[in-house]
């Protein structure tokens, strides 16, 4: 038992990762041990480095390895636009699309009375500061089309109204989506946001 306790501990930790359970963690660990030189050692080294260097950007809340992330330090991205997202995964999704060339602001969640999340728990005061200091002309509210997401969007809009142009993402039929499979809420949102062709 003691001879395998380190491995058991690794399996236990891996099982806590999203999408993995004890069985899949065991398979992953076994695979890594078999590919020790190719996988386990480089992975351990990468994890050690990331554990030491990963931090939140002090300006926008993005995850990086420096105090201020690459996007915030890039002069090319200082175009007067800030895209407000709920968390870092949303920022990465926006970056993958490559359509947005400005800077981001990661709120770190949404307002929720149920979970006692108020404006002070999110990075809303910091967003207000950035509007002034970075000479922002447009705030794009790219928050989830959920009740909590849109409640947060309206709250931010109330805070910044009159100081900056405020826009939000459109809602409607996704690319590749079939009307037959859409819920009635999405169809009515798409109908309201119809455009000339």
């Amino acid at each position, binding site marked *: 038992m003691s001879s395998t306790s380190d491995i058991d501990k690794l399996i236990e930790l891996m099982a806590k990762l*999203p*999408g993995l359970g004890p069985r899949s963690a065991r398979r992953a660990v076994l695979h890594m041990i078999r590919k020790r030189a190719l996988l386990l050692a480089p992975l351990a080294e990468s994890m050690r480095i990331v554990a030491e260097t990963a931090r939140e950007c002090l300006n926008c809340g993005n995850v990086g390895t420096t105090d201020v992330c690459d996007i915030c330090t890039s002069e090319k991205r200082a175009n007067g636009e800030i895209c407000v997202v709920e968390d870092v995964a949303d920022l990465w999704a926006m970056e993958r699309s490559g359509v947005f060339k400005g800077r981001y602001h990661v709120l770190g969640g949404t307002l929720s*009375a*149920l*979970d006692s999340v108020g404006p002070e728990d999110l990075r809303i005061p910091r967003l207000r500061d950035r509007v002034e200091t970075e000479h922002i002309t447009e705030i794009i509210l790219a928050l989830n*089309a*959920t*009740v909590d997401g*849109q*409640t947060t969007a*309206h709250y931010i809009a109330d805070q910044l109204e009159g100081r900056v142009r405020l826009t939000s993402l459109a*809602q409607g039929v996704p690319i590749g989506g079939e009307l037959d499979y859409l*819920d*009635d*809420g*999405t169809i*009515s*949102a798409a109908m*309201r946001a119809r455009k000339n062709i």
Partner: protein
Amino acid sequence: MDWRDHGILLTSRQHGETSAIIDVFTRRHGRHSGVVRGGTSRKIAPILQPGAQLDLAWRARLEDHLGTYQVEPLRSRAAAALSGRLALAGLNAVTALLSFCLPEREAHSDLYQRSEQLLDLLGQDDIWPLAYLRWELALLQDLGFGIDLSACAATGATEELVYVSPRSGRAVSRAGAGEWADRMLPLPPVMRGEGLAPDEEIAIALGTTGHFLKHRLAPALGHAQVPEARGRFIDVFSRRL
């Protein structure tokens, strides 16, 4: 144990990696929680938005267990709610107040009916605040804190009822209030279903119902505060005055 019912989704929160615990206001079983397996999936998560009208099948081994739900969407109200600031704030106020006030597993069929009707009006901003005021009066009534506006508590008069007693929750006439008039809560005609129900009167009436929510209902439930969502709705509504 199992049953099938219709209900209004009040809250949904993640449970584990893939499931959700939902709190639903049902027609025959009152406010009732349960687990939805796969409730965070791409297919089901959009259904589990506050205010959604659901067909629910609940099952548990014992009655007092949390149990699991199978959900089918009947009507999504998210689109109507997300269409405007007032609708969204209104939806949040209704679901927050129902979560806050209702005891678990106790049927409130009349209130359920009224809540369903109110939520079906979401997006109709011209009539929604009045409908909300009537719903709030019904909520107080249903939970035992009803406001009696039939006659003056002091004189028995049925004319010139312009105040509500903050202690008894009964109407008071101008003559009956006498020197205590400044301690009374206002009773605008809209609260008695009279007049054209202008927004100004509705706002005043919401102040009066707010008093009973804050000083009668909340302490009785062991809470210090009424949900913040109600205040946000009043704030959004007041801005259009």
